[in-house]
């Protein structure tokens, strides 16, 4: 177990080092920081002095080392646009994005898995056919279009739900949450459906195909031969075996939900990190862009790690001889 975790941690560190290199290259090569600081018409001597002050005359690996050392402490410098620490900007935006992403993931899993199980158990029912058609639409329509359609129907036509923003938020320590107010919860509905719909259809289709596969397995046939009722065969044996691969994929999708939140946040003017990123791209705010890149990468790495551990907990085969098998 310890060896397993250690190996995963080393892999994670390597991935982060590589992403850090890309973010660092962004700092170095997208625009010249010296020009940013001094303006176009500084003398070469002034530039050299500024370069030395910023450490830009040092060898590449020294500069990278310094960048990593500061990044590890969460220091990505100042936003060029807002002239505030990048870390502060992200700390303000993080809760909005995480709450949206978790709500979207919850929606995707809570709706996708039951729909997948149903379509596998009752492949011929009209409801299953309907689910499959809906899922096809969910996969093929682009996110922004789904968002706009939802706004059109539920915000503009019916007027039930707000079309933008987070509603009222409450501060819990440093965390601004929209989950404790009615307007916050209402504001969460459309964006989280928009963001989660694609993953929901993905999880539904995956659950369905895995479940169909498992239902053909020998041990399911033997469970029937033992006389177990359908309830146990389907929801104890088949479902549990289905969930092992579904958990993995669903967990990994959480990372892409956060990454894809950029589009949804833009459509709904959701004050999260994605919106911050889009705004910083338009102003070529390099420190914010680099920090976003690192943050998303860190998220993927953490999620991968957690999913591996979860997998480990669900599947007894990995638990005992996993160390030997990998």
């Amino acid at each position: 177990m310890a060896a397993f975790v250690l190996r995963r941690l080393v892999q994670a560190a390597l991935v982060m080092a590589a992403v850090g290199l890309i973010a660092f290259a962004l700092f170095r090569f997208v625009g010249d920081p010296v020009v940013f600081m001094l303006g176009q018409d500084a003398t070469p001597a002034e530039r050299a002095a500024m370069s030395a002050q910023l450490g830009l005359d040092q060898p590449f690996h020294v500069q990278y080392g310094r960048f990593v050392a500061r990044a590890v402490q969460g220091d990505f410098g100042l936003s060029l646009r807002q002239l505030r620490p990048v870390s502060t900007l992200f700390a303000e935006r993080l809760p909005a994005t995480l709450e949206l992403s978790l709500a979207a993931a919850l929606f995707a899993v809570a709706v996708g898995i039951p729909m997948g199980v149903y379509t596998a158990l009752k492949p011929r029912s009209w409801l299953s056919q309907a689910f499959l058609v809906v899922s096809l639409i969910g996969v093929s329509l682009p996110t922004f279009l789904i968002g706009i359609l939802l706004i059109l129907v539920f915000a503009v036509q019916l007027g039930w739900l707000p079309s933008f923003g987070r509603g009222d938020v409450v501060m819990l320590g440093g965390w601004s949450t929209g989950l404790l107010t009615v307007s916050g919860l209402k504001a969460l509905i459309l964006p989280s459906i928009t963001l989660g719909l694609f993953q929901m259809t993905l999880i539904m289709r995956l659950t369905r195909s895995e479940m169909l596969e498992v239902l053909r397995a020998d041990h399911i046939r033997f469970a029937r031969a033992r006389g177990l009722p359908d309830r146990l065969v389907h929801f104890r044996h088949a479902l549990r075996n289905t969930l092992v691969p579904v958990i993995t994929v669903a967990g990994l999708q959480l990372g892409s939900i956060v990454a894809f939140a950029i589009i949804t946040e833009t459509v709904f003017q959701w004050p999260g990190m994605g919106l911050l990123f889009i705004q910083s791209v338009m102003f070529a705010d390099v420190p914010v862009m680099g920090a976003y890149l690192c943050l998303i990468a860190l998220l993927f790495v953490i999620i991968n790690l957690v999913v591996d551990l979860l997998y480990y907990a669900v599947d007894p085969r990995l638990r005992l001889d996993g160390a030997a098998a990998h």
Partner: protein
Amino acid sequence: MSALLEVRHLRVAFETRRGPLVAVDDISLQIGEGEILGMVGESGAGKSVTGTAILGLLEPPARITAGEILLEGSRIDNLAPEAMRRLRGKRIGAIFQDPLTALDPLFTIGQQLVETILTHDAVGARAARDRALKLLGEVGIPAPEKRLDQYPHQLSGGMRQRVVIALALCAEPRLVIADEPTTALDVSTQAQIIELLKRLARTRGTAVLLITHDMGVIAETADRVAVLYAGRIAEIGPVREIVHAPLHPYTTGLMGAIPKLGALRSRLAQIDGAMPRLDAIPPGCAFHPRCTQRLAQCDREIPRAVAVDGREVACWLHGESSRG
């Protein structure tokens, strides 16, 4: 004679776009209380389909299209799914070929035994666990308390097959259908599992339909044997007589080399050719293209089973005169 299990003129077909393919045709057999009936034949002869039909586990496109199956005198082939489900495991147990895949990898041995016991008998969790322990001991698993909390992958193939047997016996069925229970095991383990099956059948008085393609296993284990060829019974009767004096030319071929238990997969080398596929079963006796003793009518008319010396054989060499 009141048999425990009686199969009458069973026919099973797979519905395909190009019409039905008949995998089992006109099979009749009986199994008495505590008797071991061997069922032997080449791969694809219809052995598993017969066993699956008896268990009521045929899945579309397979379907029983004719005949009936009776357990202790009452029909079970037309039971409602829920009634058949209750009967499975309780009155007919099943043992499958591959112990490596028959157990759910995500549940412990104990969980699988206990859920099976609780499904069939109204006992408490405590009593179910005790019975699970006793069963594991009975099928020869050492240190059963320890095994109960282990997962299938922690057991060897032979041990897993013993667990599968314990699972089949959970509700003390009077009949067990064992479909190639030793095929996936190594030779020495095969002998142990066969020994165990024989012992359990004897001590518990459980009847067994022992399906195998290994005549050696049958010769050592069964009381009677049914020889299947292309979905039909070529010959059925007491093992000793059939082994020593086969009447059907196909049985003679099978007997040509009775392998030592478990060995030899190529024992049919001396019968030229291969068993026909379901969509190309020849007219008349399905065996006639491979038969060295065929007669004029063999490729025209299907021979009916006739009684000869206490057994039944479906071959034109035997008894056609007695039928007129």
